[in-house]
């Protein structure tokens, strides 16, 4: 049986929207459902309007839906803004007493969250837990799953808090069972077999990937959407031998990471476009000094400060071209949380193998949306430090040349203090030994050496995933976090008798031209779907393959694509299927 249940919790910043959403998400995940939950919030700490939208389903695709089965309104504004998103048969749960607003209509279910909390546990702070209970009661969800989640969430606050929260949830649950019978919400049947899975967001997956990969040093300056990476590693790094430094600015963060990378530890920075703009000179420094460094660029709408808490994919060109001068790089663009984990591992390996910067392009939607994923396969985490010399080899090395010219362009790498070898590098053009030079021949030799590393990098890049459908007239092309929405759009179209192929990039640079050219020949129409205003991927495809795509579906309002939006806009583009 397929499930596709979409519930939104809305309220002001500070009302606990996030914690209600997190508890509901966990309860669904524990029931074996695929959860995808995105958050929409404003750049403020109190007030305004926030929502947490959870989709519990069975097809595994990480995508939002704009049509709600249930709306949990912690304030009146939530009703004003979202009542029109309700599907026929949907329910709005709210507290008339608290919002001082009595709604008329058969879709409204008035539950006195606050009064029930005060009556049952003498604590109105637990009104949100009453709301959670009511929502799950209405769909007759397994209460034991909820109570287990509450126990886990609140155990650090002591037994009484756990007990009271469970009582509060039970109160809301029972109230809904008793008084909500008139609502006709279909019950959710849980899968018979429940797999142990993770529920995490892109930032968390990426942080875990970095730690698994042996990242030892992170420097940063907080910036949405990447701050949680810095916070997670600052916290967990204490036990796992990773140092996170919160520093004066992103210029410093990048140069610190390069200094740490040169000295021999796996180093990373995590920021957004504005912070990355400040890091760009340091990126070129890493390219010139052939220093491994990993950069997480979590995109949000620009230019400048843009829409700080929203999403966009407008920094593809920025990631590809950032830095003065010419140097090799790799750009990875994970499509979902699981990808983000493995992309981090790959990024550190590529950075060390090719002694050059590697960028991981995420965006707010991927970074902050929660998804259920299979436990990461840690046996797949292999650490490849490339041409790093052993301590034994370096011990008595006296004429070491950090930038020795080789066929692959990769020089054997010794570390300062590893042995007798003196490791010298320079942001000026330098000779093999790392000392600055002015002569043309050495300049050419070093430029050629550095750029030869592109050939190796090119071989490492995984081609975009091409999923062909029988008799498809259209190929939808995307990159990064739009994967779930595009795949679900393809499934919706399929049901409608319209088959489409999808071509999705998870790794973008060096550009996999051959695979892309081959895929583009398959359908009559190639249509790029991306979250920016200038069709950057479409332009890149043109530049790298000569193919001009037939149409573009672009979005730059700061909101993520929904599958139905893609379908609607595609139907506008394609008249004859």
């Amino acid at each position, binding site marked *: 049986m397929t499930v596709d249940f979409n519930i939104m919790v809305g309220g002001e910043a500070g009302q606990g929207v996030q914690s209600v959403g997190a508890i509901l998400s966990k309860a669904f995940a524990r029931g074996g459902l695929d959860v995808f939950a995105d958050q929409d919030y404003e750049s403020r700490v109190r007030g305004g309007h926030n929502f947490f939208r959870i989709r519990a389903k069975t097809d595994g695709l990480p995508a939002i839906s704009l049509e709600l089965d249930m709306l949990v309104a912690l304030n009146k504004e939530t009703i004003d803004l979202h009542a029109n998103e309700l599907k026929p048969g949907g329910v709005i749960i709210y507290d008339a007493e608290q919002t001082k607003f009595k709604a008329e209509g058969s879709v409204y279910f008035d539950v006195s969250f606050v009064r029930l909390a005060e009556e049952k546990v003498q604590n109105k702070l637990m009104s949100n837990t009453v709301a959670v209970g009511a929502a799950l009661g209405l769909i007759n969800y397994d209460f034991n799953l909820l109570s287990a989640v509450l126990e886990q969430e609140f155990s650090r606050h002591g037994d009484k808090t756990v007990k009271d929260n469970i009582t509060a949830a039970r109160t809301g649950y029972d109230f809904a069972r008793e008084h909500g019978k008139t609502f006709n919400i279909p019950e959710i049947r849980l899968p018979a077999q429940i797999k142990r899975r993770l529920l995490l967001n892109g930032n968390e997956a990426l942080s875990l990937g970095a730690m698994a990969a042996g990242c030892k040093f992170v420097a940063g300056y907080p910036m949405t959407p990447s701050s949680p990476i810095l916070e997670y590693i600052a916290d967990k790094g204490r036990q796992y031998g990773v140092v996170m430094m919160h*520093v004066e600015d992103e210029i410093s963060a990048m140069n610190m990471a390069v200094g740490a990378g040169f000295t021999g530890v796996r180093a990373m920075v995590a920021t957004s476009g504005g912070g990355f703009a400040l890091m760009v000179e340091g990126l070129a420094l890493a390219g010139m000094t052939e220093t491994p460094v990993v950069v997480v660029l979590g995109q949000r709408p620009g230019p400048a400060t843009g829409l700080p808490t929203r999403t966009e994919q407008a920094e593809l060109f920025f990631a590809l071209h950032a830095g003065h001068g010419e140097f090799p790089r790799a750009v990875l663009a994970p499509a979902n949380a699981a990808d983000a984990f493995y992309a981090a591992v790959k990024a550190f390996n590529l950075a060390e193998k090719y002694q050059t910067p590697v960028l991981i392009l995420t965006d707010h939607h991927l970074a902050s949306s929660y998804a259920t994923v299979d436990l990461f396969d840690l046996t797949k985490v292999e650490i490849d430090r490339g041409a790093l010399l052993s301590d034994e080899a370096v011990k008595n090395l006296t004429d070491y040349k950090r930038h020795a010219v080789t066929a692959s362009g990769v020089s054997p790498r010794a570390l300062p203090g590893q042995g007798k070898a003196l490791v010298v*590098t320079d942001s000026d053009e330098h000779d093999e030994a790392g000392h600055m030079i002015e002569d043309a021949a050495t300049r050419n030799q070093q430029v050629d050496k550095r750029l030869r590393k592109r050939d190796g990098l090119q071989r490492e890049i995984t081609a975009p995933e091409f999923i062909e459908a029988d008799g498809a007239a259209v190929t939808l092309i995307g990159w990064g976090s739009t994967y779930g929405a595009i795949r679900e759009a393809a499934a919706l179209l399929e049901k409608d008798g319209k088959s489409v192929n999808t071509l999705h990039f998870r790794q973008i640079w060096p550009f996999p031209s051959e695979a892309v050219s081959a895929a583009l020949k398959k359908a009559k129409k190639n249509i790029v779907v991306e979250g920016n205003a200038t069709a950057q991927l479409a332009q890149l495809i043109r530049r790298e393959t000569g193919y001009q795509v037939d149409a573009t579906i672009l979005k730059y309002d700061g909101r993520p694509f929904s599958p139905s939006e893609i379908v609607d806009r595609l139907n506008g583009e394609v008249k004859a299927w």
Partner: protein
Amino acid sequence: MVTVKDYTSDVPIAWCPGCGNFGILQAVKKALVDLNLEPHQILFVSGIGQAPKLPHYTRGNVFNGLHGRTLPAATGAKIANHNLTVIGIDGDGGAYGEGVQHLLAAARRNVNLTYLVHNNQVYGLTKGQASPTSDLGFVSKTTPLGSGQPLNPMMLALASDASFLARGFSGDIDHLAGLIKAGVTHRGFALIDILQNCVSFNHINTFAWYKQRVYKVEEGYNPADKTAALLKAQEWGDKIPIGIIYKQERPVYEDLLPQLKDMPLVKQLINPIKIEALMEEFV
């Protein structure tokens, strides 16, 4: 036994004859020999300018990075391997202009680094423009109306709680070598501002100008006294103090990191990292 020969480089020197940098280079070598440190134990980190070329003219590990970004690169390197003796080298442009925010942060943070700033009150590499420490009214191609109020690096460092602050003069090599030794052995961030003549572009603050004005801080001067240091740091003009201006003992940044307790980060095995327990937190 380390000798000055160990610190002799065969890279040809690109400085102007008579440049104050030669004296500073000699003092650096002398200090490191006196400390019996071998070149492979040293990491020089420098930026861009005439002064930051210094590491190429001696021997050691060298990261010659970007203009103004010496301290961040040096900090990253030191945290990665705190067994290295890390010495940053910049001119007044990189240290007090382009990268001044890093100086404040490094002083506050107190990572165990030594930072040598060759201060000739003018830009040499870019040919003679005013620097943040140029005298008031210094006329140059970019400041035809004369440069503005000079920055006082000593006051700035004190305000940022630098735990070691000294001033030296390129014309007094032995004294300067002593300051560098004291800076390197000091646990914490050490700023050594080094007055230096520029024969090509600063015809006001010449070797003779400095020579006439510098004096060693008096016997009995107590560098642990911050109030005295604040007064000393403001002396400029007819008499300019050289020596250790301020010194305090406080925890270095590395001491606060449990991650560095057993061994430097770079020595820690990274294969494989067991993150199973962390992953369980998301189940």
